[in-house]
């Protein structure tokens, strides 16, 4: 069985349609940008987790040590425990950040998937002429749906969650 050399290429599906080429180009660009952004968010999440985990463990080890010495000076140790736990509680808030990051990413990826699904359906529609659809109405319908999906994808904004650069812990009184 001979294997033909067919490079894997997205425009292989239906050549000769300029319209399609433009659409696909636009989709590709959006896909590119969004996938990179998603990757960055995920890397950020990992860093957040690793960092917070370390800090968490430090805090709780400290709390543990403080507890161990509880026998000797009660008040002193209890205060130290309290301080350490308060510090820990601050670090624990990372989960909110993580959750939001993940939610943003999830939405981004959902929209990416939607684009790819719609693209596939559009291609299929263009490949199957339908007797009951005058003037290729079904293709127009698919194009509209595809464009909608691309628009939704392009409107995925920047991640709103940034822990390091601005504002963490800031207070604005209006």
């Amino acid at each position: 069985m001979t294997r033909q050399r067919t490079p894997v290429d997205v425009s292989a599906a239906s050549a000769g349609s300029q319209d399609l080429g433009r659409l696909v180009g636009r989709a590709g660009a959006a896909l590119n940008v969004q996938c990179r952004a998603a990757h960055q968010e995920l890397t950020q999440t990992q860093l957040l987790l690793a960092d917070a985990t370390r800090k968490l463990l430090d805090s709780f080890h400290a709390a543990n040590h403080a507890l161990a010495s509880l026998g000797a000076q009660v008040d002193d140790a209890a205060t130290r425990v309290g301080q350490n736990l308060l510090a820990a509680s601050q670090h624990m808030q990372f989960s909110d950040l993580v959750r939001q990051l993940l939610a943003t990413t999830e939405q981004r990826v959902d929209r990416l998937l939607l684009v790819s699904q719609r693209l596939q359906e559009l291609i299929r529609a263009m490949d199957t002429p339908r007797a009951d659809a005058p003037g290729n109405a079904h293709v127009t319908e698919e194009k509209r749906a595809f464009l909608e999906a691309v628009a939704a994808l392009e409107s995925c904004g920047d991640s709103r969650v940034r822990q390091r650069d601005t504002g963490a812990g800031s207070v604005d009184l209006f």
Partner: protein
Amino acid sequence: MDLSRFLPMFFQESEEHLAAMEGHLLRLDPASPDAEALHSIFRAAHSIKGNSTIFGATHLAEVMHQIESILDHMRKEVLRPTSDVISLLLETCDAVREELRHLRDSGDTDQTALQPLYERLQPLTQADAQHKSVPDVPVEPSAGRSERFRIEVQLPPSRDMSMLPLAELYAELGALGRIEDVQASDGANGAAQLTLFLLTSERQETVRTKLVSLLGTKSVRVEHNQPAPRAAAGEDTVRPARAGDSAFGFFGEERSSLGSLASSSGSIMRTTVFDSTTAGRRAVDHDSSPSMLGRRATDRMFFDRSSIRVDVDKVDRLLNLAGELVIAQSILAEAAQRSGAANDAGLRDSVAHVARQTRELQEAVMGIRLLPLDYLFSRLPRLVRDLAQKLSKDVELTTHGGDTELDKEMIEKLADPLMHLVRNSLDHGIEPPAAREAAGKRRRGTVQIRASHQGGSILVEVQDDGAGFDRDRILRTAEQRGTPLHPDISDEQVWQLAFAPGFSTADTVSDVSGRGVGMDVVNRNIRALGGSVEVRSQRGQGTTIALRLPLTLAILDGMSVEIGGESFILPLSFIAEALVPQSGQVKSITGGPRVVQVRESYVPLLDLQALLHIQGASTETGIAIVVEADGRQAALGVDRLLGQQQVVIKSLEANYRHVPGIAGATVLGSGRVALILDVNALLRAGLAPVKGMEELAPEPVER
């Protein structure tokens, strides 16, 4: 526009989808196929189809489309998932996987590669001739589409907002959808107006009717409002839009996304029985010890294979624990203030409570890096099914403790050894049905995999009820190879002989698992992870191979002890008691080990210095610590107790080499390295007729 950078993602995803499909296919019951499973298979095929088309692999897309059709017929109960159908679908999965691999490795595609399979699948897709052919394009239902409405509530003149039944109003609207914005104005002529923007999938009439019944016709206006009332990307960015936006697929589900692929099996320990002869499944759920952290992996990151798979549930649980901890601390603080005395029982209870919570929290944090063994176990049913068919044997596989968790890396390294062992059981262990019957056994053989936590280790056992190891054959082969043998050699030691490289007593070269090449590689791999392999076997009854692995990310409660001037850590879980033997309580049995009197009985006293080859003065007066493991007891002689502490175990293997009798190492607060004693190994060595550790481990592990 170069999409090829996304190819790896495409391949990885498709592999995972295929694995998911296989899992479900294997568990389908022909008599009553699980709707949820059919759904999942459908979605997986749909996803692969979509991806394939994007990347030009239309032959894959077409085959996936066929699978979609077939699954739909099954859902409509026009087609039954018989064993033949399932086998064909499994074959398809294999072929697709093969083609994907080819694509990935060589970059080219042969559009005709799947042709034969396509032809075999075609008749099944036509199973349903009466119904119209399934539409390719998923139809968006008109219901379920979200729309925005602008709702104006007019107040009678000179009345203010408090006259409105606001609580009910908001409750009503909240039940209908999501309130996106609120605007209040005093209006002309002092008539106040409240404007609300509602995003809902309900129809305009419904919204209107509900509001009118609450407020009266005159006051309410409900209009369409297209553009989002506030800045675009803003609102929904962080809360991903759920149902209602669009629907995919024949089954009318709300969305096809990565997250919905994860198969969830609850947090109770599950024993699943896989039958090699039919596609049947019987799941037996045990209610014992629910996994503390739950197992729903709702968020998966596909981009990087080595990335942490974050289980958001775990993070939540983590935070709950932190919350409880915080409360416990406040109780503690209060108690401390009240009593001011360290001996107060209430205070000590609080301390214990907080300590316990802290420990749980630590474990929860560790838990983020752990994966359940089910990741491995899930591959096994397929293996067993195929192998059993190939060998014409009847075998049933059960797994227990799949929710036991292990460090991610360790799970990956365990995969090969585990599969080897299962293959061995099927190949050499389980006899053909006729032979089993003749031996008075059930025709169907069983292979059981059990995983559990035991103190500071994970125990994974592979047990079969086959023919068992043949002691005489092994001894004979060993003799032929010139292996030195002790006359009193125990069964356990005989089994260990089979771990030598190239050691095989199989009569024929089995193409299934090779020339007995499995065992020594398994042993090597497990030892490299810092673990050990034990064999228990009974001729004619069966074999159990136990893999014991240390928890590399464990926090161990240990007792720090001094032996010959060196520090060691003894895991607390093994310690039964400690005593200072008086002279006269230590006796020697002639020609045997020393024993120490513990109350009414005598416990063997192990000479750690000899066993571990520690230099240093051996002290006659010292402390005897009685340890217990696997039902055996012994006393370890140490010079001093240095104190209890929690240590983080680091695998010795990774940093040095496997040292018999040592389970790992840790860095003490002082910065020095302390070795953690492997109590199981010490007991084995110390209580065996042979002296020293080396004899028990004939093959030094190379690094």
